[in-house]
């Protein structure tokens, strides 16, 4: 079987053709356009993926098609958007409104916020029919229930009457899809529709979109940053960068023979699912030993049945110096709770956290403070992990000076560290907003390393970064580990990232550890069904993007 979709579209009519589209900032005429001559066409039944890193202009392209560019800020300066025979850019507001939801529709990234919280979801779907003056009363409701059925929602009568907050993320995205497809549009725009979802849910939603597309012959413009997803669903791929399309090709061609240098760089940066080669066992005593760790959140109380939520339960592992242990799981699995307990940012309910020889799980604050230097954390969001009002230098010496290092000495060390993490020492006098996300993450790492810790906890530390930056930050962590022998506890939802950096992997589900072993054992020959389903759901898992070829998996997985 072919690895990529091989839809043939020779002679199939265009549904949409974007021709030489330019978009500029309204207030700054003459500036570099935000979108610079974008052209692409999508034919009936075709899935076109628009892929690029943040700021490349991919979402803007879709908003332009929808006629939803924020007025007064951005405007189309030239080009055409042909939907069949009509140029959308010449349509009036009223005409565009009539087209939206009926001939072109769109689904968004965050199903949590994209639905109105105070209106029942059935009525929100119904509103599409009503807004286009189609169907009313019983007939309308029948059509809504029918489309809800088609997106495979269970118990449609009940869900029809539910509010968004009563549904799961996957169900909400199904509602969004139902809303988008109820009038059988010719073009569906999906803007990162699975980015906010867990991998297993993502797999189902991707399958659903493909299924409905086949059924109705819809053209799909799929916007994503995830090459794995692209490899699963795309007929055609358009790679965007700085407001331009740098390469367009059928998926087959693009993944096997990428031509443009940027495409190749992008593919190379996609971490492989294949685990790193094993490193020798360490015989030294463990840097961190966690035994029977549990965290229970109590809720309710007054006049209400007490309920307990076990965020983490009986978690046990040990972390060797100079090695990386990954905790992998979907949202709600308890992986972040474990990280925060280990840092004592939340109080563990039970269990032991041995840092070296000392159990810090229940240490009083005063004595805990003395131990803080030994274990440091790097957070997910680089934009919030540095105090915006303090200079980089001030942030870097805060820790060491807390432990009695003279400021001048700490500052000298900070200079060295900046060089080590790949930034210039002058940057110490700058403020965080002067740096990009990746640079800030380097600074956050430098701040942690300045404490000369035995353990660094990296809580989704590369999840907010673009793949190319992600790659560099992972390399930096690896380098630092080799130089300084730091043990890393790496929390991630991304199996690819885990495969790149972890020696050992723990898989968590519903607060419990379901599998524990070397990266090799867990990722290549998983034993637990949940681990298997996670690996199975990882998009593009059979493809080595950097090498442009299949990964030879042992038979055990497939």
């Amino acid at each position, binding site marked *: 079987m072919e690895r990529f979709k091989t839809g043939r579209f020779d002679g199939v009519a265009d549904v949409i053709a974007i021709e030489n589209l330019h978009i500029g900032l309204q207030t700054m005429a003459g500036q570099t356009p935000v979108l610079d001559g974008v052209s692409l066409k999508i034919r009936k039944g075709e899935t076109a993926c628009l892929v690029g890193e943040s700021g490349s202009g991919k979402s803007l392209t879709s908003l332009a098609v929808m006629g939803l560019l924020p007025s007064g800020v951005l405007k189309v300066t030239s080009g055409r958007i042909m939907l069949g025979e009509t140029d959308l850019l010449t349509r009036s507001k009223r005409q565009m409104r009539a087209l939206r939801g009926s001939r072109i529709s769109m689904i*968004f990234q965050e199903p949590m916020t*994209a639905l*109105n919280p105070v209106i029942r979801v059935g009525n929100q779907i119904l509103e599409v029919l009503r807004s286009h003056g189609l169907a009313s009363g019983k007939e309308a409701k029948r059509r809504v229930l029918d489309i809800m059925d088609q997106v495979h929602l269970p118990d449609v009568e009940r869900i029809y009457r539910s509010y968004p907050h009563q549904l799961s993320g996957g169900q909400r995205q199904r509602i*969004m899809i139902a809303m988008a497809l109820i009038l059988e549009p010719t073009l569906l725009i999906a803007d990162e529709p699975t980015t906010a979802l867990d991998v297993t849910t993502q797999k189902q939603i991707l399958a659903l979109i493909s299924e409905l597309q086949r059924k109705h012959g819809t053209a799909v413009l799929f916007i994503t940053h995830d090459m794995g997803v692209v490899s699963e669903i795309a007929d055609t791929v358009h790679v965007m960068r700085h407001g331009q399309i740098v390469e367009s090709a059928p998926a087959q061609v693009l993944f096997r023979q990428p031509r443009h240098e940027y495409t190749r760089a992008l593919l190379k940066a996609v971490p492989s699912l294949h685990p790193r080669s094993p490193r020798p066992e360490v015989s030294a005593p463990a840097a961190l030993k966690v035994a029977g760790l549990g965290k229970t959140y109590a809720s309710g109380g007054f006049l209400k049945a007490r309920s307990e939520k076990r965020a983490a339960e009986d978690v046990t592992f040990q972390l060797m110096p100079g090695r990386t242990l990954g905790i992998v799981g979907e949202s709600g699995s308890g992986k972040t709770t474990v990280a925060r307990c280990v840092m004592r940012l939340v109080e563990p309910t039970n269990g032991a956290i041995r840092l070296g020889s000392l159990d810090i799980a229940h240490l009083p604050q005063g004595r805990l403070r003395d131990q803080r230097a030994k274990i440091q954390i790097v957070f997910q969001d680089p934009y919030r992990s540095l105090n915006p009002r303090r200079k980089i230098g001030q942030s870097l010496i805060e820790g060491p000076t807390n432990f009695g290092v003279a400021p001048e000495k700490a500052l000298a060390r900070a200079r060295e560290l900046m060089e080590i993490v790949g930034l210039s020492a002058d940057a110490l006098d700058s403020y965080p907003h002067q740096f990009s996300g990746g640079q800030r993450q380097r600074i956050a790492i430098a701040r942690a390393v300045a404490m000369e810790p035995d353990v660094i906890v990296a809580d989704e530390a590369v999840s907010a970064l673009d793949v190319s930056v992600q790659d560099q930050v992972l390399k930096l962590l690896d380098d630092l580990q080799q130089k300084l022998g730091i043990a890393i506890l790496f929390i991630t939802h991304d199996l690819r990232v885990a495969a790149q950096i972890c020696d050992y992997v723990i898989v968590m589900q519903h607060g419990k550890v379901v599998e524990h072993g070397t990266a090799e054992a867990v990722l290549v020959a998983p034993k637990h069904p949940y681990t298997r389903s996670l690996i199975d759901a990882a998009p593009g898992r059979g493809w080595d993007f950097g090498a442009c070829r299949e990964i030879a998996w042992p038979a055990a997985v497939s």
Partner: protein
Amino acid sequence: MLAYIIKRTLAVIPVMAIVALIVFLILRLTPGDPAAIIAGDSATPEQIASMREAMGLNEPIYLQFLHWIGQLLQGDLGTSLLSGTSVNALIASRIWPTLYIALLTIVMSVLIAVPLGTIAAWRHGRLSDHIVMIISVAGFSVPAFVVGYIFIKIFAADLRWLPVQGYKDPALGFGEFLRHAILPALTLTTAYVALTARMTRASLLNVLGEDYIRTAHAKGVSEPRVLLQHGLRNAAVPILTVVGTGFAMLLSGVVVVESVFNIPGIGRLTIDAVMARDYPVIQGMILLTSGIYVLVNLAIDLAYTLFDPRIRY
């Protein structure tokens, strides 16, 4: 749900208890002898002594407080030093004009302010938005009594359309009531409209930035429907909150406006009591207005559950 209602209702108790304590302390922690202050400058030592006795000032302070609280719990606000009648009866006889005017104010304000704020948010950054914003900021920058006098000067003194001062009970004819109540209510409305329109605009602007508004546009929903069904409905909770917290401002305004328009409501009662140093009446009035404020906000909190299905504690 029921648990939330009960819990929220019980939360009123500590707040009112602290209000009572504050009211008590304002009077008792005065420099000097409250009995001497109340009895007045011309009182003889004997009169002051008997006043101390009557006020229970010879007891330890905590016992005084407990006595007073005990009285309050029986619904007894005490006895007016000036007229000798019970504070309850005084308030009961004076509260209706105030309530009618307050009600008229709220109805007029919401009817004017919500559409104004909606238009401003809809035309955000345009001329109509700026005009609404300037009017609304001006509305609470002018003291209520100045507004009142301007209205009297224009509509009563110059145009002679309406009476200068005074009050007629609605029972004596609604037309007459309105003729007397409209200027005081309009006076209070200027500030209240300003506040409510600002809040409507601000919360609607917030809501209009939400993702689900973008979804509604993507569905092809018409502009007015996006604004009303998706926008205002989600903005209702903060708007309601400001109507509630603005109630305190309204109660303050009543004192001023009743004084300007010579209306025999509880606002005038308060000022007369302050002038006469009639402390039981002052205490009673503060307790009453705070109580009304707390209850109005309780009602609004409970009403949230109707507007927002997510609030189910």
